[in-house]
């Protein structure tokens, strides 16, 4: 393959891994727990900005052509890890503001507005992350390993793949764990979960945090590759794309985010970005958006459970498999849940 094609494909592979990471974070919130976080993209942005300012040197470097805060010039794995933590904390913070009190769709609208506020703040305060122009020349973490650009891209794709695999394994372990069962209980019936001693608000805040951290990691991986990040990179419509990806792939299923992220953002949106243009310059991108909208409506109408639906989970009944003592079956069920997830908070 020629260099240009390899470059193109390696780029697509990296984008695919980044979208899969992000989609699995969103799946944890939206698919598993039923938290409608329409500001999801700002956590990716938080991770990206965090990585950018931690890896860039002081703001005065390069003739001070861009203004930003921090500028620590930290070595490789630190920015990635710190970005995850920062985005996770941001998730808990925003969640604490909203998640306790608002109806599901109202929460979605409020988060949408928060997402736009964040874009506005970052665009208008130039000193924060260089305003609308955004940050550029963000250092590449593995630049010292090779000077060949194509080799570097494949190396980076490998790195993104490893991060992606780790995130997928972690999310899967979480979903299959007793904690994951509690999260699904919150999604299916909040009141029943609360009646069984689950702290619904704390569980929601937890997934706001974990999902935010995963989004932050995806942003960190993305920005170290693209080396640039601006408010244009995280418009609220990107959140819409991720939600569409989940709905297409299968909401709440383990492999749904993977399939959805490859089909919707990569094939539909990024895939055509490097293809020959026809018509005026805005025609192809607008047709892509129309295609995403139509795909979304078609899936919601014809296949609302997606390509890989969440499998139905069955559990042996605790109440009948054990002899009844003086306790009621209700007590047993609670005891059982406690045993699985630790004492209730």
């Amino acid at each position, binding site marked *: 393959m020629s260099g240009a094609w390899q470059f193109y494909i390696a780029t697509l592979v990296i984008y695919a891994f980044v979208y899969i990471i992000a989609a699995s974070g969103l799946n944890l919130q939206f698919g598993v727990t039923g938290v409608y976080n329409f500001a999801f993209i700002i956590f990716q942005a938080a991770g990206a900005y965090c990585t950018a300012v931690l890896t860039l040197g002081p703001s005065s470097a390069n003739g001070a052509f861009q203004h930003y805060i921090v500028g620590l010039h930290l070595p490789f794995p630190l920015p990635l890890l710190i970005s995850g933590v920062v985005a996770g904390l941001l998730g808990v913070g925003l969640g604490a503001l909203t998640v306790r009190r608002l109806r599901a*769709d109202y929460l979605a609208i409020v988060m949408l507005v928060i997402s736009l506020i964040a874009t506005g703040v970052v665009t208008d305060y130039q000193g924060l992350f260089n305003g609308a122009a955004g940050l550029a020349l963000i250092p590449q973490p593995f630049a010292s390993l090779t000077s060949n650009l194509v080799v570097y891209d494949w190396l980076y794709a490998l790195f993104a793949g490893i991060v992606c695999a780790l995130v997928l394994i972690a999310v899967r372990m979480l979903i299959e764990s007793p904690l994951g069962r509690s999260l699904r209980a919150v999604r299916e019936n909040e009141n029943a979960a609360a009646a069984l001693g689950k702290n619904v608000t704390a569980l929601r805040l937890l997934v706001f945090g974990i999902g935010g951290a995963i989004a932050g990691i995806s942003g960190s991986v993305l920005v170290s590759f693209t080396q640039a990040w601006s408010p244009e990179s995280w418009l609220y419509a990107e959140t819409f794309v991720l*939600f569409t990806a989940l709905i297409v792939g299968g909401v709440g299923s383990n492999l749904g985010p993977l399939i959805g992220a490859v089909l919707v953002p990569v094939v539909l949106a990024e895939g055509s970005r490097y293809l020959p243009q026809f018509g005026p310059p805005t025609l192809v991108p*607008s047709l892509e*958006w129309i295609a995403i*909208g139509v795909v979304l409506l078609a899936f919601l109408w014809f296949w609302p459970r997606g390509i890989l639906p969440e499998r139905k989970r069955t559990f042996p009944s605790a109440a009948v498999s054990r002899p009844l003592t003086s306790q009621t079956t209700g007590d047993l069920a609670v005891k059982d849940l406690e045993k699985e997830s630790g004492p209730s908070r």
Partner: protein
Amino acid sequence: MQSLVLYIGFGLVTASILCIGAVGFTLQFGISNLFNLAFGATMTAAAFVAYVCNSAGLNIWLSLVLATLAASVLSFLMNRGIYLPFERRATGKFTMIMVTLGVGIIIQYGIEAIWGGDNFSYNMAAGSPVHVASMLFTTTQLTVIAIAAVAATAVHVLLRYTRLGKAMRAVAVNARLARNCGIPVKAVVDSTWLISGALSGLAGVVLVIDVQVLNSGTGSDFFILIIAAAVLGGIGSASGAIVGSIIIGVVAEVAAGFINPEFKDISAFIILAVVLLLRPTGVISSIASAKEVAR
């Protein structure tokens, strides 16, 4: 002090446009219990209909009427053709939001596919400046304020003094009870979408008449302020939407004038965030509470 009054004047113009849109958006939520995120795209579509009529040689005010009618029909069809079928399948509330967002994106980028990303403006006479107290308006802006006042009064009269309005309020508070009382809920919902669609079209065209720039994102960008105004006023309540619009409009322009022009949107959102923390159902909260939007 003089300049404060001046900026309040600018704020009233923004508030007028917001008010038309916010009343329409909030009516849709009140009667259909649905956040229609395609509202902004409908505004843009109407503004482009007016642009086409205007380019064909029609007077801008006549174009405004035609565009308003077009938006009314478009909203009605959107509800009948897409939203209602989904709702009949007992689609979840969040999924409905995704449906409306999908419809909005299709309309917005459909417009962009046809007209591209360029800016357009209407062919109309520039208004002459008018001083009111120490506020400065153009005659066009005064017309915009007058249109908003007439629209708000009309909605108020409709809701307060007509049979249809009474039925609409009943459906907003409890649709099932309204149906059991013999109110033809379907017809009420249809009329609401015709009326609120007309308001979205009116808001879209009036917005472009005021800011004099039209592109495929015009309506969607402004729509965020409309959501903020409607939520601030108490979602579902028409009078709340008017209050919310005036607060957001005036604060946004005063902040833009005194602090920094780019502070315009942010200041509005800060108010919104505070309201959501202290009183998530908004200023006039009867319908928002009835629908339990917040705990």
